[in-house]
């Protein structure tokens, strides 16, 4: 793993400010940090939900995110990446995922964060199960998530 790339899969919440500080601490070559936080909504397709339960494939989840982080590091001029994905039961309003990218200039940080999220959504082995008033069900994958990931292979 390239220096300054951190990937974690964990049940506990994360502190966004602390993660950004960890990426930039002791460095004066970073001019831009972009962070994306995915948050659990209180409804899915207009139906209210009580909670999400996130299942993952231990080992592969970290490896798959790591492969995309390496791709991002080689494709853009980045100073570092942190990706944290939570698993287990998550209620509306709670954090699910964090992507932080740091670079000299903003464009690389913006693009790399978006690239990582697009790939994470359609290629990282995580699955969301929804708890609702009428029972539990697995969220279905969306075609537009695949399309969002695919656009990075065209240019």
């Amino acid at each position, binding site marked *: 793993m390239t220096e300054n790339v951190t990937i974690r899969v964990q049940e506990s919440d994360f502190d966004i400010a602390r993660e950004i500080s960890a990426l930039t601490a002791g460095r004066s070559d970073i001019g831009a940090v972009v962070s994306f936080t995915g948050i659990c909504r209180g409804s899915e397709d207009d139906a209210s939900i009580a909670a999400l339960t996130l299942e993952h494939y231990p080992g592969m989840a970290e490896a798959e995110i790591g492969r995309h982080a390496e791709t991002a590091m080689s494709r853009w001029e980045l100073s570092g990446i942190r990706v944290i*994905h939570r698993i287990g039961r998550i209620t509306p309003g709670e954090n699910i995922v964090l992507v932080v990218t740091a670079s000299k200039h903003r464009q690389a940080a913006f693009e790399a964060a978006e690239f990582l999220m697009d790939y994470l959504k359609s290629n990282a*082995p995580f699955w969301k199960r929804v708890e609702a008033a009428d029972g539990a069900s697995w969220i279905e994958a969306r075609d537009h998530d695949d399309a969002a990931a695919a656009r990075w292979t065209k240019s």
Partner: protein
Amino acid sequence: MKLKYFAWVRERIGKPEETIEPPPGVKTVEELITWLVARGETYAHAFETPRVIRAAIDHAHVKQDAAIAGAREIAFFPPMTGG
């Protein structure tokens, strides 16, 4: 080799993992699915729409025409919904 199942594939088969020894004629992921389906109703239910099933060999995504020779761990799961 070890097989692992996730999300509704795991629920339909009724177990998270198992160790199997497919016959030598089973050479690809697709042929492995066909072999599993013949083992019983739970597998037939899990793989009833094979085109939506995703597969990974040793923690890397593969297409269903991938060879399974030498695989230590093969996983089957639905399209991913993380992030």
